[in-house]
C-alpha cells in the first residue's frame, strides 16, 4: 500500500497509487510530484489501476498537482480508473479537467 514511482525511457514519471488516496497520504503524492518538477521532470502519469478509493482530499490533491504541472509547461495524466473511480471523476466533473486514459499503456502512447 502506498505510492511507487518510476521513470520510463521516454522520461515520463509514472506514479502508481496502491490502495487509497485520502487526506492522510495525499501530501506524500504531492511531495513526489513536486520533487520530480524540481528535478526537471515535466511528464507525469498517475496510474490508478491498483487504487481502491479516493476521497475529496485526494481529488483536491490531483487538482492542485495538475495545475502545478501545467504551470510548469508540463503534462499530468491519469489512467487505470476502475468503474467506481471513473464515476467519481464524472460526478465531480473532474473528468473535464484531466486527461484520463483507460490504461497506463494508452496514456503513455499519447505522451
Amino acid at each position, binding site marked *: 500500500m502506498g505510492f511507487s514511482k518510476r521513470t520510463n525511457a521516454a522520461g515520463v514519471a509514472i506514479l502508481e497509487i496502491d490502495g487509497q488516496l485520502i*487526506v492522510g497520504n495525499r501530501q506524500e503524492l504531492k511531495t513526489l510530484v513536486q520533487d520530480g518538477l524540481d528535478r526537471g521532470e515535466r511528464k507525469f502519469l498517475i496510474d490508478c489501476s491498483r487504487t481502491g478509493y479516493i476521497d475529496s482530499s485526494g481529488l483536491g490533491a490531483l487538482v*492542485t498537482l495538475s495545475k502545478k504541472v501545467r504551470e510548469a509547461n508540463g503534462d499530468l495524466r491519469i489512467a487505470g480508473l476502475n468503474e467506481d473511480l471513473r464515476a*467519481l471523476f464524472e460526478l*465531480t466533473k473532474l473528468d473535464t479537467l484531466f486527461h484520463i486514459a483507460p490504461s497506463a499503456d494508452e496514456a503513455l502512447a499519447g505522451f
Partner: protein
Amino acid sequence: MDETVASPLRLCVHRSVDCDPPGTVSVAIKVPADLRFVEDAIELMALHCFAGAAPCKRTSFRLRVLLAESLTNSILFGAQGNPQRTVRLAAEVTEQTIRLQVTDDGPGFDPREVPDPTSPGALGRPIGRGLFLIRNLADRVEFNEQGNSIWMTLPRS
C-alpha cells in the same frame, strides 16, 4: 449483549445486538480527532458493517468514501484537528441497510450554505467536494439541527 474492544490505536468499538428492530447491530467507535486515524477507523467500521455479508464492490467503495468524507470534515472543522477531542462514529446495521452517523463536538454548520463544487468557477478549486460526494453516494443524508451530526444510509449488499 454488549462488548467493548480496544485497539492499539485507542479506537473503542461498542457492539449491541439488543436494538429495535430485532437483528439490528449497533457499532460505535470513538476516533481521536487526528487525521492519522481516519483510515484505520474506516477499515474497522467496514469490518463490522459487513460482518457476515458479501457486499458488492460498489457498496464497499461507497461506505469507505462516505466515512472518509464525514470523518475528515468532523476532525478538521468540528474538532479543529485537536487530538485531545474525539469524533463519534456509529452505525446501525440491519440485514439490508447500513445507517452511519458521524458526530463531533463542534458548533456545527449549515449544509444548505455549502456551494456546488461542480459550478464552472469552482471546478479548479482543490477543496469543497466532500459534502457533494456524500450527498451523491449515500441513498439518504440527514443532519441534526445544530449541524454537527450527520446520518448517511446505504444498502448493505
